[in-house]
């Protein structure tokens, strides 16, 4: 089944993700122990929590990279956790984008080719893919770096290339795992400014794993993962 056959993107505002009672262990080590979460379409959500709490595992389950031992994950009205690996692979390619802590650019490719990669893998012709990639250079302040390889880029430049790669195919959801973790404060802020502005403009839902409050402050809402469970607190009233 092709991901294109999935139900159409629901109209906003609506629930794009719902995870219920998700359990996942690595061998004898429990990572998620009944995690539940809902994400609204177009929302920018931070997943926070201590190291080893299960926040990256939860992100990988939502993104269809890991399959839970039990529980349910619904994406756009469909069970994601019971899809075949092929179906999830198509979903990840066509409807999701990813940004990781260290960019993880393909070192043999130029910056331009790295950004175009999701389009090329999705079957877009090379000329059209490179044209779409090219539009991101000015937008992200990367003009003149089109032909550089990842080893010739600074950390901030490489992360902006990674961000463009995550968004070039206009995904419905962008998953970001510590997207500023390897950058200094100022460069990290620049990347987050660009990420949020681009996601809002495209209407992309963003789920960002971070331990940095400053990154979480860019989002609409945060949830805390602790011991494999999710908790969220909202504050309606603050006293003195």
């Amino acid at each position, binding site marked *: 089944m092709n991901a294109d056959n999935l139900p159409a993107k629901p109209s906003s505002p609506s629930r794009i993700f719902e995870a219920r009672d998700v359990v996942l262990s690595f061998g004898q080590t429990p990572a998620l122990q009944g995690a539940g979460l809902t994400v609204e379409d177009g929302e920018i959500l931070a997943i926070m929590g*201590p190291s080893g709490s299960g926040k990256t595992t939860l992100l990988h389950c939502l993104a269809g990279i890991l399959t839970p031992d039990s529980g349910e994950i619904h994406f756009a009205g469909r069970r994601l956790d019971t899809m075949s690996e092929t179906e999830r692979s198509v979903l990840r390619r066509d409807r999701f984008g990813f940004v990781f802590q260290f960019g993880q650019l393909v070192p043999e490719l130029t910056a331009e080719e790295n950004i175009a990669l999701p389009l090329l893998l999705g079957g877009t012709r090379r000329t059209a893919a490179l044209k779409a990639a090219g539009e991101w250079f000015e937008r992200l302040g990367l003009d003149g770096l089109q032909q550089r390889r990842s080893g010739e880029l600074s950390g901030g430049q490489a992360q902006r290339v990674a961000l463009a790669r995550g968004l070039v195919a206009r995904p419905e959801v962008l998953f970001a795992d510590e997207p500023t973790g390897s950058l200094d404060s100022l460069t990290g802020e620049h990347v987050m400014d660009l990420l949020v502005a681009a996601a809002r403009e495209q209407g992309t839902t963003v789920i960002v794993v971070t331990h940095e*409050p*400053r990154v979480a402050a*860019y989002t609409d809402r945060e949830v805390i993962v602790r011991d494999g469970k999710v908790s969220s607190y909202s*504050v309606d009233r*603050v006293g*003195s």
Partner: protein
Amino acid sequence: MSVPLTLLGLLEREPSHGYDLKRDYDAVFGRGKPLPSGQVYATLGRLARDGKVVVGEAEAGAGPDRKRYVITEQGATEFEAWLTEPVEAEPHLQTVLFAKVVLALMLGRDAARYLDTQRAAHLRRMRELMEIKRAGGMVDALLADHGLFHLESDLRWIDLTAARLDALAEAVRS
């Protein structure tokens, strides 16, 4: 640090003499700045006047030290509201955060939940400051950054404290 509310918290633990309250306050919250005895009794006098504590019968050997103070329902309600409510997220409130966590642990309350709601309050304020940065000029951004860094520093303390709550509870109750 709110001295009246902290004293109410110590009285919520058990009825006490002014002398005991001063000793416990100095040991846990004073940190090298003992509370003057006059302030302890003046505070207790105001709390009694406002109906938040009552004074038990004077014991043999009369004098202020011989009076036992008991928290009232009104005092307990006020203390409870203060303890569970996150404070306005602003720099330099570490002493209030500290007092609330220690008192919650001392009284067997849910300190983890308090820290979670405080984290949420801090993040909400950080979002407001980020909005000021986005909408304002460079000077506004500079001022907002100052606040943001202090709030981040509080949040690091909140996270570290949350991770150590079990050990802290043991230390506070021993």
